[in-house]
């Protein structure tokens, strides 16, 4: 597998040599491979947002190095605009960043800055709107008259219109209602399936368990755990100690193991846990 993001021994200190000095990142190394869906988890202040800013060259990396598709973001000769064309970053509550009069113009803002021709811009806006599930008819609407979930889709479409090969989203489902949350995560799954490498920052273990291939857990600026969801969720006690949670079914699996049930250590999805329970009771059938 080819890596598209390589972070090596990255440390970041805010306000060094002041009373407010804070070590946000402490010797962090991680890899994201082509086509992966990686989850980044951690409590508030764990360093997630600082790390994400580094991946888009919004923060400078020192000491440490960050490579995006082999480009060293710290090197003098690196053109940051090249990096930002590869890496699309969707901030938390991105709908607060909408500013244009129409949905179409808001989405077109980035591509227009790339000096693309009109036809190409229109094509990209259409494609981005389709990818995020916004109806054509909304092109001329004011983004400010849309619902919260739709506004967020417009903001994401604006990032997608830059055709990034890597998409990083900081808490994309925060503040949405359960149906909106499911819709947003399915949308991101669709973007991932279209060939984009995705890094998603989230507080929700249920969400990262369901959607991500691999997880990194940040705590106090360090990578505390990493691996496939099943490998991470067996560390229930440690995760709780870091102010995080595990999916409900992983908790049940642990509670049942404690009572002597034979439930495999990595089980965390409802289907897996149900299958293990049914096997225990000799019901062998499918859960879903």
């Amino acid at each position, binding site marked *: 597998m080819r890596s598209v993001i390589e972070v090596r021994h990255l440390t970041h200190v805010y306000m060094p040599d002041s009373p*407010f000095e804070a070590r946000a990142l402490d010797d962090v190394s991680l890899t994201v491979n082509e086509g992966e869906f990686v989850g980044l988890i951690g*409590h*508030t*202040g764990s360093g997630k947002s600082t790390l994400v800013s580094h991946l888009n060259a919004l923060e400078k990396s020192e000491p440490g190095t960050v490579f995006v598709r082999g480009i060293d973001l710290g090197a003098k000769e690196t053109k940051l605009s090249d990096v930002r064309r590869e890496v699309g970053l969707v901030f938390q509550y991105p709908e607060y960043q909408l500013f244009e009069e129409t949905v179409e113009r808001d989405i077109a803002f980035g591509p227009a800055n790339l000096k693309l021709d009109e036809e190409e811009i229109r094509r990209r806006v259409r494609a981005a709107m389709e990818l995020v599930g916004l109806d054509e008819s909304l092109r001329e609407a004011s983004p400010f008259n849309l*619902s*919260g*979930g739709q506004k967020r889709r417009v903001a994401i479409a604006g990032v997608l219109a830059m055709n990034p090969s890597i998409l990083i989203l900081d808490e994309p489902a*925060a*503040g*949405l*209602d*359960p*149906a*909106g*949350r499911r819709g947003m995560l399915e949308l991101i799954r669709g973007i991932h399936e279209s060939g984009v490498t995705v890094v998603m920052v989230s*507080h929700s273990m*249920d969400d990262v368990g369901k959607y991500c291939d691999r997880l990194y857990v940040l705590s106090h600026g360090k990578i505390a755990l990493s691996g496939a969801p099943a490998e991470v969720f067996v560390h229930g006690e440690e995760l709780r100690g870091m*102010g*995080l*949670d595990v*999916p*409900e*079914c992983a*908790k*049940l699996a642990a*509670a*049942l193991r404690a*009572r*002597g*049930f034979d439930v495999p250590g990595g089980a965390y999805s*409802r*289907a897996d*846990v*149900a299958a293990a*329970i*049914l096997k*225990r*009771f000799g*019901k062998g*059938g*499918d*859960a*879903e």
Partner: protein
Amino acid sequence: MSDAILRLRDAAFQYDGAEDRAVDGVSLDVAPGEFLAILGRNGSGKSTLARMLNALLIPTSGAVEVGGIAVSEENAYAVREICGMVFQNPDNQIVATVVEEDCAFGLENRGVPPEEIRRRVDEALTEVGMRERALASPSMLSGGQKQRIAIAGVLAMRPKVIAFDESTAMLDPVGRRDVFELARRINREEGVTVVWITHFMEEAVRADRVIVMDRGRIELEGTPREVFSNVQEVLALGLDVPEMMKLARDLRAAGLDVPMDTLTVEEMAEELCKCGA
């Protein structure tokens, strides 16, 4: 219920220029000391309903009574004495640059004597566990801590009811748990009636009673167990049901006899042991 602290009778609210009523004929009694959770998808009318309890919005028809006082323009201040409100975004509720000054803001506006303000602010900050941060700058606090400051500001006014409008939506899991547990404690120990609007089912299952709103009306009402037993209906209303109930449904479908209304991990583990482990 004659001693209801909140009494709504066919209450409705229509925003200027809107075609439909945001709250469309809600009748509801809330008993003193109750912890009521309100669920519903975005745009279902939850926030509009909460804003009427605090006289931020005046019902366009029907009646809302808070502590026996009819919600109206004239009674707005009297209503707010009884019902305080905590909103979603911690950054939008902080007005001062020092924690204790922020907490004192409402009392000062009401002309409470300085020594009384001092006493009430200290008490409120102690209650929310932020006494030692009294002189901190709110900008140095986490989202959960800011919400606790906002709650202290409301508590200092000694309301009988507090309406929380998605006050945990923007917090991380730790902040969310802290703020929710604080609201539960205020409810259990101080007897403050709580109206808790949320999208998080794991919070709603711990309320005394749950109502689910859709299109401005109450669609489901009852104990958490009663409401969430309607799995299909709850999902159709744009909500979620607790994971253990979904698991119970799956297990039952496969022929394992666990109760349909199993809500929590502990209950499920117990039930499975009873099944003959």
